[in-house]
């Protein structure tokens, strides 16, 4: 449990202190902290998942000063995650109270789920930030490049976990 809390604090700290101040390009705006929602334990009730998503979004909004934007995106993230995971056979892992990862879900389903959720999250954030004055080109470039970087970092996280608990 303590390890889990430390992991959450580290990921949030990495997002807030490092990634949010990354100045690689105006098109790169990675949101890696959503890996915490992606890898939530499978046995968690839907209500708790929603509340955790809401809470994590609230924390990010407090740091980024974007009230409501990450909260809303995190809630949608959780709902879409529920819909995707319902189509995957994970009952056994849920009974064993495991978290969602490459090891539990398998390589392809995990990549598929992560790809959809990460791309959705970035595009949703960019859409709601530019609502009413959408620049399709900017959103496409930023969404795709940010998603790519986020996916790479999340992949590294998963690889580290696999190495730690082979």
């Amino acid at each position, binding site marked *: 449990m303590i390890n889990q809390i430390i992991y959450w604090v580290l990921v949030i700290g990495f997002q807030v202190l490092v990634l949010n101040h990354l100045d690689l390009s105006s098109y790169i705006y990675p949101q890696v902290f959503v890996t915490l929602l992606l890898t939530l334990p499978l046995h968690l009730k839907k209500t708790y998942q929603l509340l955790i998503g809401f809470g994590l979004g609230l924390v990010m*909004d407090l740091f980024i000063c974007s009230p*409501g934007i990450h909260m809303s995106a995190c809630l949608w993230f959780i709902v879409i995650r529920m819909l995707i995971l319902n189509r995957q056979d994970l009952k056994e892992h849920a009974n064993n109270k495991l978290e969602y990862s490459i090891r539990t879900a398998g390589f392809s389903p995990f990549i598929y789920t992560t790809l959809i959720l990460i791309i959705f999250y970035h595009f949703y954030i960019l859409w*709601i930030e530019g609502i009413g004055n959408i620049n399709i080109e900017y959103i496409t470039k930023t969404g795709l490049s940010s998603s790519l970087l986020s996916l790479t970092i999340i992949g590294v996280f998963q690889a580290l976990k696999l190495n730690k608990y082979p």
Partner: protein
Amino acid sequence: MQRLIAFIEYNFHIILFVILQTICGFLVFSLNPYQQAIFSKASLGVTSTINKLSSDVYSYLNLKSQNTLLQNQISQQFKESFPQSLHYLNDTFSIVDTSMHHLFDAIPAHVVFNTAHKANNVFIINKGLDHGIKKNMGVISSQGIAGVVLSSNQNYSAVMSLLNTNMKITPHINGQEYFTEMIWDNSKFNCLTINGVNKLEQINLGDVVSTGNSSLLFPKGIPIGNISKINNTPKNQYFELELKTATNFRDLEYVFVIINNEYLGLNDLLLND
């Protein structure tokens, strides 16, 4: 009640999601200046559309009183048309002769029944003997001549429409009175026929036909219609003129009854002659 509770319990995560998203929406559009401005703009558009809709509905429901107001405005227009000879009362306006003696009064009335498809059309107005209306009084609309009162009871009067084969009025064209009859032959709706105008007269399409001095029922200069067709038959020395009535009898709703205050006296004089 138990089923309701079970339903809520089963779908609690959906309800929670909707509640939390509502909170998020509120925060996004109230605390972020850019999103707030966008929302204000959008809501302004929606509000103005709803306001316009409600205004249109209100205007439609208010048409009757607006028509009454329009009738009063038309009275004002009559006043401007005859500044030297009209006198207005609350419910009537009067045309005054040069000695400042009221020759004509006009009483606003509402058409409650109307026909325009028969050979002898009649319409009924909501003013009668109690309002001073009697047989043989002229009736005009805001556009021009409408008819002549046939009979009256206490509150209503039957009016012979201009579209009646028994209606005969002397036309006044281009400042000249033609002592020939203008009749409706029931061939065309809103079209009268004038025969007996000599071909030597200068008559053009669109010329205004109005009332002249030869009628005791109407003041001079009230429009009857416009010349819409000139039939020039070679063997005939007279034009056959077609006249489009100024009043549209299908939409006739508001009229004025013209009361000639000296009708009896003048009629006696004419009969004695």
